[in-house]
């Protein structure tokens, strides 16, 4: 454009110069012709008159013809000079026009090159747009994936919380059962602690009763013995009274009475012994009955102890199973949570993939800027730019094709025929 402006400027200047030369020449010729005619008229004022006489025409006509000849001559001279100048200017103008034509051809070539460069730039921008679109989609996919996994994490955490709440309720129930078992065990422990003293006290009471009964048994035996001896004495007294005859008759009556008394004493002694035996039997039966009662009581207590132990063992087994299940469930949940978190973190790799893609694009853009900047220094201008841009685009697309794309992550192989995970 600068060259064209220069050519236009040269052309305009040449035209102006030509016009000025013509004007100057016309003015100078007119002034010179007028001066020449004036001098001729001034110094030779007689010859117009002689010429009019010689030609047979009036002097005024001669003067008019002279003025006309003078003006025609000067204008002819001016025209001659003008044509010579114009011829020279026309040559210059033609040269300028030829240069202008060359410049126009060059400009047209540059314009065509710049149009091609624009097309190449548009193709490149389309590739960049595809890249950015891909990045946008990947970012969206990544974000959606993270949101989905966050939801799953929240769901898993909620399930775990719900399970723990349920487990807490079960644990409370089991704790109540165990507390009840502990209280039963405390009662049993108290009973077992008091049992030796109770047994000792019962034994002492029984022993005391038996001693007293045994003492009563000895007393009945003494009465029995006294009764037998009294009866024996009464029998001897009756024999002696019979031997004394009538004088012993009264004594015989006494002996009979004594004997009757001895028999009654013996009967009383038997009655006492019998009573004591019955009393002893009754005590023994009572003791036996008391022992039986205690045995029942003890049996009941023992049964309670067994039940309490069974309950305690059941509670312990429940608690053990409960914690085993709880540990298993929590471990499973924890593993699932860890996997979800690991997968979610894996989605972060999208950012790296997208970052690398943007880096490749910005590198290409920087190279394109260098090519644009190089046009100013290049003698050929835009001419080499389209080819350079197309080569740059081809390199960019080739480089892009050598890198993995996240949207193919579910495929086992890539376009380059390589598996996504390959162990050598």
């Amino acid at each position, binding site marked *: 454009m600068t060259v064209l402006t220069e050519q236009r400027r040269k052309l305009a200047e040449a035209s102006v110069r030509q016009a000025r030369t013509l004007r100057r020449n016309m003015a100078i010729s007119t002034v010179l012709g007028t001066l020449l005619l004036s001098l001729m008229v001034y110094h030779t004022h007689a010859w117009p008159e002689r010429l009019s006489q010689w030609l047979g025409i009036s002097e005024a006509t001669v003067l008019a013809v002279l003025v006309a000849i003078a003006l025609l001559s000067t204008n002819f001279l001016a025209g001659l000079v003008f044509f010579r100048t114009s011829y020279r200017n026309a040559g210059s103008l033609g040269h300028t026009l030829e240069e202008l034509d060359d410049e126009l051809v060059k400009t047209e070539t540059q314009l065509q090159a710049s149009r091609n460069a624009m097309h190449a730039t548009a193709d490149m921008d389309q590739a960049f747009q595809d890249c950015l679109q891909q990045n946008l989609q990947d970012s969206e996919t990544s974000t959606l994936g993270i949101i989905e996994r966050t939801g799953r994490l929240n769901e898993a955490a909620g399930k775990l919380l719900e399970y723990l709440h349920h487990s807490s309720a079960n644990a409370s129930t089991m704790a109540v059962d165990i507390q009840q078992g502990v209280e039963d065990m405390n009662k049993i422990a108290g009973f077992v602690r008091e049992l030796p003293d109770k047994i000792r006290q019962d034994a002492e009471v029984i022993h005391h009763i038996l001693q007293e009964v045994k003492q009563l048994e000895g007393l009945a035996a003494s009465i029995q013995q006294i009764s037998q001896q009294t009866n024996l004495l009464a029998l001897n007294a009756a024999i002696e009274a019979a031997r004394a005859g009538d004088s012993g008759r009264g004594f015989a009556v006494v002996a009979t009475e004594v004997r009757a008394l001895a028999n009654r004493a013996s009967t009383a002694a038997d009655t006492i012994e019998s009573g004591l035996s019955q009393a002893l039997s009754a005590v023994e039966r009572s003791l036996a009955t008391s022992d039986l009662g205690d045995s029942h009581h003890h049996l009941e207590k023992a049964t309670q102890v067994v039940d309490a132990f069974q309950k305690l063992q059941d509670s312990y087994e429940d608690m053990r199973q409960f914690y085993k299940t709880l540990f298993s469930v929590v471990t499973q949940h924890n593993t699932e949570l860890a*996997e979800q978190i690991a997968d979610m973190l*894996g989605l972060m790799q999208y950012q790296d993939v997208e970052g690398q893609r943007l880096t490749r694009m910005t590198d290409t853009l920087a190279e394109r800027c260098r090519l644009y900047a190089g046009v100013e220094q290049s003698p050929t201008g835009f001419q080499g730019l389209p080819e350079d841009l197309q080569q740059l685009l081809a390199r960019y697309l080739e480089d892009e094709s050598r890198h*993995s794309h996240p949207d193919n992550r579910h495929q086992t192989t890539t376009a380059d025929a390589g598996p996504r995970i390959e*162990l050598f």
Partner: protein
Amino acid sequence: MPKTILVVDDSVTMVMSLKTSLQIAGFTVETAHDGQQALDKLKGGVKPDLIITDINMPRMGGIDFIRHARALPGMRFTPILALTTESQQAKRDEAKKLGATGWLLKPVSGTDLVKVIKQVLPGA
């Protein structure tokens, strides 16, 4: 004793996500942001049981890092996994030739990554 994994990547996001994933899976993790830094760590006494490296990195890329790492004493049989966006077969072949253990294309899910690690690192 937990196994130690050296993660080499110039992307901070990658390093942090891999580190967290691997720590959750029970590994101890060392990190480096390029091949040169990773090599300095190995020379400085870090003895990883496994190395995961990117390929395209500043200063020293993954291919050169594998070459130099394999030349270090005690590093001949340490598994080295390349985790990259580079899918060019020529690069895979070069890495394989230099002694890489595997080639993984980003992105790789945490579950898949741990599976591969357990495959190449018995007892992990």
